[in-house]
Structure formats: C-alpha cells, structure tokens
C-alpha cells in the first residue's frame, strides 16, 4: 500500500491561541527527497512533526493515500539530537522490530545487517549513550530505517555533527533514497539542501512560501524572501 500522495490542506497547529505553523497547503508525491528549508524559527521542525503526526493538528487536514493507522507504521523520524535508549547498540537497533513482534533471533540478524550498513558493526555491544555524536546519529538513522518505512522524516540530522560525520550520514541518506525511501528533511544548511534535495519546500513564519523542483528553486527562486535566504541575507 502506497502512502503517497500526501495532501495537506489548511493545516494549522497552535498553542495557547498562538498559531505556530499554518495554514499550510502542500502536495507531496513521494519521490526522492523533499527538503524543508527556512531560517531558524521558521517552523520547519513543527511542520515535520505535524506531517508525522507528533504535533496536534488544530485546524485543516493532512491526508495520506492510505488509512492513518497504516501510515503511522510506515514512517520513521530522526531527531536533531539523537535520542538513545539506555541500552546497547544492538538492543537499540532491535527495539523497533521487537515492538512490532519480530522474534529475537530474526531481529538480531536484521540489526547486525543494519549495523554493518552504517559502519557500527564493531560497536554492537557498546552502550549507545557512550557513542560519539556522529555514531549516535548513524545509530538513530539505522534504527529509524530498520523497519523499512516508506517515508523518513529527518529534523536537521547533521546540525550538531562535524564534516566527516555529516558526510557519512548523507551517504546513508543517499542509499536510503536510492532504495526508494522518501526523505522529508529539514535543514538550514544550504549546501546540504543542494546535495540532497529533489524538491524544496521553503517556509517562513510557519507558512509555505515556495514549493517545487530543487534545481528550479536554487536557480530562480520566486519569492523575495527565498532569494534573500539563498543570498545568505538575514531573513525576518
């Protein structure tokens, strides 16, 4: 069952009467990588959480092409600051599978396979919180992808990483995209957006200002704010 297209209509989330994001209209067809761009505080994280169902929708609709319960099982989320379960690397990787009823031996085989993919195969017995920031983020990625979701949300996944760790994480993301997984990634790193994006959603003050093909966006942005952002100006 395919999750896409994803249709967002007049979606809004607010807290204590203040609108955080919205109203937003968006159509995603689920191919390649969608990069949500915008300056700090523009609402990128909230938009991702809203699409994922982790933030409460206070108005409007977000509709997947399949039923909501199934859609929830086909999503993964990677946070800016990786959250590690207080367990070993192996147990962290096995966790999502075990929660879905996969037997331990099978879960372990898959976990070891994913550890190899992200280069953590020699750290399976180590406690996850003792890993470096880059290793933790790779573990978080593998853990989010181990159930092979159709869509993976990533909230500034390399914001706290150095160049080498960023390169390694991006390599994993490219492989995921090549395998058919749809990535919805937020970043304010222009270089990363150019390297990964097939489609760009430019957001400011909680509203979508532009959505379209990445190359078209970077070559000829339509809005003044997007042009200013790409120039490196401060956008308010």
């Amino acid at each position, binding site marked *: 069952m395919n999750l896409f297209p994803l249709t967002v209509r007049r979606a809004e989330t607010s807290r204590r009467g203040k609108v955080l994001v919205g109203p937003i209209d968006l159509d995603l067809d689920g191919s390649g990588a969608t990069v949500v761009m915008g300056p700090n505080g523009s609402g990128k994280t909230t938009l991702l959480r809203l699409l994922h169902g982790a933030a409460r929708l206070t108005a409007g609709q977000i509709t997947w092409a399949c039923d909501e319960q199934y859609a929830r099982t086909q999503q993964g989320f990677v946070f800016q600051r990786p*959250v590690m379960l207080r367990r070993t690397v192996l147990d962290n990787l096995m966790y999502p599978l075990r929660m879905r009823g996969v037997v331990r031996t099978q879960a372990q085989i898959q976990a070891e396979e994913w550890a190899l993919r992200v280069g953590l195969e020699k750290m399976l017995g180590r406690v996850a919180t003792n890993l470096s920031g880059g290793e933790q983020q790779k573990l978080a990625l593998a853990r989010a992808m181990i159930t092979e979701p159709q869509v993976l949300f990533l909230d500034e996944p390399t914001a706290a990483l150095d160049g080498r760790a960023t390169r390694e994480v991006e390599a994993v993301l490219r492989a995921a995209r090549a395998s058919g997984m749809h990535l919805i990634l937020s970043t304010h790193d222009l270089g990363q957006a150019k390297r990964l994006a097939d489609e760009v959603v430019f957001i400011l003050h909680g509203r979508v200002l532009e959505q379209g093909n990445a190359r078209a966006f970077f070559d000829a942005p339509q809005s003044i704010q997007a042009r200013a952002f790409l120039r490196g100006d401060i956008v308010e």
Partner: protein
Amino acid sequence: MTDEWAQMGDLWAGITEAFRLLVTLDRDLVEITLRSLQVTLTALVIGSAIALPLAALLAVRRFRFRRGVIAVLNALMGLPPVVVGLVVYVLLSRSGPFGVLGLLFTPTAMIIAQVIIIVPLIASIAHQSLRDLWSEYHDLLISMNVTQGQKMRTLLWDARRALLTASLAGFGRAIGEVGAIMIVGGNIDHATRVLTTAIALETGKGDFALALGLGIILIGLAITVNLAIHWLSRTEQEGRW
C-alpha cells in the same frame, strides 16, 4: 558520669550479645530473622509489583486528576504506620469486613500492612525517575508508534537500576517497621515475632543488651540485603544503569 558509664556498658554488652547470638546461631534469633526477611521480602515483591507499574502509568498517561493522584501519593509517603496498622486491624478483626479470612495476628496481616506502607514510597520515588526518563524518550517512542503498554515496559526496563533504589527504599522502610506490624501481628512468639517487635519487647522488659544485640543484627541484615541486591544487579558497573 555513672549513667554514661552504664550506657556505654549497655552498648558494649549489646555488641557482645549480638556477637554471641550470631556465633552460636541462636535458634530463636534465626527464626525471628528468617521471619523478618520472609515478611519484608514478600511485602517488597508485592509492593514493587503494584508500585512500579503504577509509577510508569503516571509517567506516560495523561488523565484527569493525574496531578492530584501524584500529590496524594507523595503525601502518603509519610503515612503513619500506626494508623495503617489500626486500619488493617479493623479490617481484619473478627467483626471487620475481612474477619472471616482469619488473617489477624498472622504474618499475612503483617505483609498486608507493610505493602500499604511501602507502595506510596516506592511509587513516588520510582515516578520521579520514570518521569525524567519519559521526558527523554517521549518523542522517540511516539515516533515509533509504540503502544501504551510497550512505553511502560520500556521505561521500567531502561530505568531498572533507578527503580531498584526505589524498591530498596521500600525494603528499608519495611524491615525497620514496628508500629503497624505490632498491632496486626501481635508479636506472638514463634508465630509473628520479628526483629523489630522483639527489640520493642526486650526494651520494654529492660533487657537492653539483648535489644541492642538484635538492633545491631537488624542493621547488619538491612545492609547485607542492600549490598547483595546492588551486587547482583551490578549497579556500579561502568557504562550501565
């Protein structure tokens, strides 16, 4: 000056008596000690089985009056044992609603009283740890779409070493408890006498040396059980929780 010498003498006599009781493996001492352990450890297992899931539920579930329940639980940590003993006595006495069960003046009645005393204590301490862990795990577990039961089990497992401390606090409270179990147990020789009630009895009889000896054994027992549980669960091992 004479009083002080007399007190020092009692203390020394207590230590000597404790040593003698231990070395000779005094039959009464062994019986009382084993009963103390049996009653307290049973109460601890039952109390933890109630308190830990309750603490996890309070950490992950949002419901009406949740804050009120937590406040009451915290307040009940200071529940006066004598009042608990009195209530359990009334409930289990022949004319009480559970009188037909014939539990009054049995170790079971003592266990019931201890469970009532330690559940709020264990649940409150455990809740603090689980609440902190939940704030760390919240977004992750929501994003993984796990069920409420799975969330609770995950928290209980990952916080197990902190929860051990909560349970040990319960053990400490229960093993040293005297007021409630004296009322519901009756301090009957060879039936419901435990270390604390024996100490109270010997003090009342003026046999301070024996009372002190039993007290020293009680403290030693509490420390031994704590150390054994910590050692078995390897709480201080590097890189573990």
